[in-house]
């Protein structure tokens, strides 16, 4: 009979004597493991438990470990708004919860704007904006900050975007605006706001980049690997040219276009948008007949190589209605694609089983004044990850 080697026996040597005293004597990486299963708000409370716990929960190594792990455990943010008819304020109601529908934090804010757009980053922060008014929210810490106003723009039908750059650990907000008007037309300027952890977000400045935006883009940009992407790019005045994606490279600060995947049967009924899956830019092509979602992945952003990565029939999705349902993939998680189909729960598409499963029922709000045949969901959803990222307001 043999014993385990010296190395193997020494692994737990230091905790063997004090097993009965439990938690404080566990190895550091086990403490990390246990604590990383808790929400940010709880962990910040637990800094008050003891000096040791305070040091542990403020340790940069722990925070890195925590953030890496929380990326595998996305949470849901639900947003409801109600308009105050007397002024142009919206009362925003933000609710966090986990994928099981277990309720987390809640925040109510009154902010200016007729229709507030929600820009998730795919990470810890959410951006809300209306015209040139921008706000940042960390659902985990409930820190809510309004940014310096962006440039005023006579025409507000331009794009904005928000995202997280993993390599530099910065958040970036981008805003397009009409720069000047003359008899020959107008320029579309582009300004960027950069935010690092602990910066006082409310005083961060916008920086206008040198290059003007060569295309009119509408809608929100998606940030993937330090590049912002928009669909629906068309040259000034030419409304027929919808076959391009506009890319803003944040490192070079220049614009270029990317053609859509070929072949692609385009027809007016299609609903096309961009999403990030597994670290790649993806183009989602929703067809009406047959009800199908093709997801093209930009495998090589430099040589512009598109691969049709997934084809998913969504007539097998319960609750699907080919007139009203818009299926939005949110992220790739545990080898499934999580989609939002405007119902009262999320659905998960499993590639092996080639079927959807329904997630837990979430408490959503529905439009009671609507005149459509099918109730429209008022609540807007996005995913976020628990993060300690500080907006510098506390």
């Amino acid at each position, binding site marked *: *009979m*043999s*014993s*385990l*080697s010296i190395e*193997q*026996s020494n*692994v*737990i*040597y230091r*905790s*063997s004597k004090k*097993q*009965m*005293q*439990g*938690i*404080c004597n*566990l*190895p550091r990486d*086990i403490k990390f*493991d*246990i*604590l990383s*299963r*808790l*929400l940010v*708000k*709880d962990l*910040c*409370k*637990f*800094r*008050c*438990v*003891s*000096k*040791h*716990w*305070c040091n542990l929960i403020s340790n940069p190594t722990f925070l890195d470990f925590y953030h890496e792990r929380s990326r595998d455990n996305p949470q849901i943010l639900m947003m409801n708004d109600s308009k105050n008819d007397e002024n142009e304020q919206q009362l925003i109601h933000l609710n966090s919860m986990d994928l099981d529908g277990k309720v987390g934090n809640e925040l109510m804010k009154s902010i200016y704007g007729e229709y507030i757009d929600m820009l998730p980053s795919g990470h810890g922060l959410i951006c809300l904006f209306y015209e040139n008014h921008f706000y940042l929210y960390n659902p985990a*810490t*409930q*820190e809510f900050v309004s940014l310096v106003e962006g440039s005023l723009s006579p025409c507000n039908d331009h794009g904005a975007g928000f995202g997280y750059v993993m390599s530099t650990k910065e958040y970036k907000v981008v805003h397009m605006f009409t720069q000047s008007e003359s008899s020959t037309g107008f320029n579309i300027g582009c300004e960027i706001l950069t935010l690092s952890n602990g910066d006082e977000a409310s005083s961060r400045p916008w920086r206008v980049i040198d290059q003007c935006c060569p295309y009119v883009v509408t809608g929100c940009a998606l940030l993937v690997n330090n590049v912002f992407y928009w669909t629906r790019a068309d040259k000034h005045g030419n409304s027929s040219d919808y076959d391009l994606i506009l890319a803003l490279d944040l490192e070079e600060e220049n614009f270029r276009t990317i053609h859509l995947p070929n072949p692609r049967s385009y027809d007016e009924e299609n609903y096309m948008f961009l999403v990030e899956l597994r670290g790649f830019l993806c183009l989602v092509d929703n067809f009406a007949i047959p009800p199908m979602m093709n997801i093209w992945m930009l495998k090589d952003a430099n040589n512009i190589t598109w691969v049709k990565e997934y084809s998913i029939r969504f007539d097998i999705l319960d609750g699907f209605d080919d007139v009203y349902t818009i299926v939005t993939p949110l992220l790739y998680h545990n080898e499934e694609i999580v989609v939002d189909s405007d119902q009262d729960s999320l659905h998960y598409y499993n590639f092996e089983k080639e079927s959807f499963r329904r997630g837990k029922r979430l408490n959503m709000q529905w439009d009671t004044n609507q005149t459509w045949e099918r109730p429209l969901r008022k609540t807007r959803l996005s995913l976020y990850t628990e993060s300690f990222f500080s907006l510098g307001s*506390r």
Partner: protein
Amino acid sequence: MSSSRIITLTSSDEVAFDVDEAVAFESQTIKDAFGDDRADNGTLLPNVTSKILSKVIEYCNMHVEARKFEERSGFDEELKAWDADFVKVDQGTLFGLVDAANYLNIKGLLDLTCQTVAEQIKGKTPEEIRRTFCIKRYFTPEEEEEVRRENQWAFE
């Protein structure tokens, strides 16, 4: 197909447990140590008491058996329920299991026990945590006040 051997695991208090190789190999540590070496058939575990080791073996037995029924519907829920019952133990035993799962590198058991400890911590106030786990503050009053102030938002 060769017959699987029996491996004898001996606890720190010198109690010997005979387990099937398949069950023992739920521990990556044991699997690595024994591997293809067919001469050895037992080992001493100086860091695991018999009380804990018998629980660990119970877990491994169940999970090896359970794999035969993976395809059965409702199976997942049954196993989860069994796991939930399995960790209804006193604090000392729970931490003993965390330690043992880490030392023996049994991924499922480590995950289960760490999650259980996390659930016990969740929702408690700092004072409750101190009492439950016998933790001393080691803060000076000024330090404690500062930490509390910096994280006051978390208490609201």
